[in-house]
């Protein structure tokens, strides 16, 4: 497990409140060692892996109401690479690998896009559930920050969906409970759920299948469903 969730800053490029990773007004002129390291670490295998990383993140963005498809995952990857090369996103090869840096960038940007998917008003997706209704009531009661309220609403519905699909899988449910209880790292989850490493790993593989199936469906429908 990594600490990405704790440290990732906001880096959505296309939003009004840009908050990139270590941006600088100075023009970016990487030196030869930087360019050599960037070139060496930027492989087709890494890029395809990042595309796979970006898909579940795209799913959360799609669930928040933004119309995205599989090309959105590619755009997240391509933009993070292009902006690293141009210096919009600052990468220090002495501090982390290019892979780690790009994961952080994609994580932050997708998070920001999810939070600001305000142009697409909430639609109950034709699956009126208790969770959905409760979330609607909750959201409407929060007047101070409607964007935040909508975000909670979408997240609540999405988690209800995932939990529903995992309802028969005790181990996956325990993992989700651990996250709900505040766990972040693998060690936290293992300690909370009192499970072995192997059980933890297998539960995540099954959770991956659930999220992958939902992602496939959502991105194939271009965010319309």
């Amino acid at each position, binding site marked *: *497990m*990594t600490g*990405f*969730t704790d440290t990732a800053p906001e880096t959505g490029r296309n939003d009004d409140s840009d908050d990139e990773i270590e941006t600088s007004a100075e023009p970016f002129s*990487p030196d030869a060692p930087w*360019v050599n390291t*960037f*070139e060496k670490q*930027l*492989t*087709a*295998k890494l*890029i*395809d*892996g*990042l*595309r*796979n*990383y*970006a*898909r*579940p*993140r795209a*799913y*959360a963005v799609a669930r928040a109401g933004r119309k995205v498809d599989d090309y959105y995952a*590619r755009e997240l*990857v*391509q933009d993070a*690479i292009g902006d690293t*090369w141009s210096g919009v996103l600052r990468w220090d090869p002495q501090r982390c690998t290019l892979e780690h840096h790009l*994961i952080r960038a994609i*994580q932050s940007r*997708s*998070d920001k896009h999810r939070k600001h998917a305000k142009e697409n008003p909430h639609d109950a997706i034709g699956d009126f559930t208790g969770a959905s209704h*409760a*979330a609607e*009531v*909750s959201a409407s*009661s*929060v007047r101070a920050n409607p964007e935040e309220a909508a*975000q*909670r*609403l979408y*997240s*609540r519905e*999405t*988690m209800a969906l*995932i939990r529903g699909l995992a309802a028969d899988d005790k181990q996956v449910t325990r993992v*989700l409970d651990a*996250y*709900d209880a505040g766990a*972040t790292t693998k060690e936290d989850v293992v300690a909370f759920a009192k499970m072995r490493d192997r059980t933890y790993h297998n539960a*995540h*593989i099954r*959770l*991956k299948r659930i*999220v*992958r199936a939902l992602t496939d469906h959502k991105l194939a429908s271009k965010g319309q469903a």
Partner: protein
Amino acid sequence: MKNTDDKDVRTLDIITHEVGLLEMEDGRKSTEDLRWAEGVVASMRTKIAQYRRDNLPASVPIKKAAPLTARLLAMPRAALEALFGTLVAAVGPEAQFAHRNLDALSDNDLRRMIQTIETHTKQG
């Protein structure tokens, strides 16, 4: 209610990240996806090559070789070849020279090579 919703936001963020990392290790790969990834690499390599070209100095000053020393100019071919042999033995197997066939090397070329070796090894 608010606390539950906050948990959902957080949990969704964590699981899409963790599942993403698993997908990165063991995700689906199609020929089209791989072609796209290779295209991105090729495009970036083109940019990198252009950047390197743009950062080459406009003109590289040609450094003029120092004149041959009077000592080397006074040496006949046999003495030069003997000196060269001594220098090669002194420098050891790490030394590399552009010219090996001394029969095809002019006397002044040999003098130039000896002077270069002596300059680099601070001899002579």
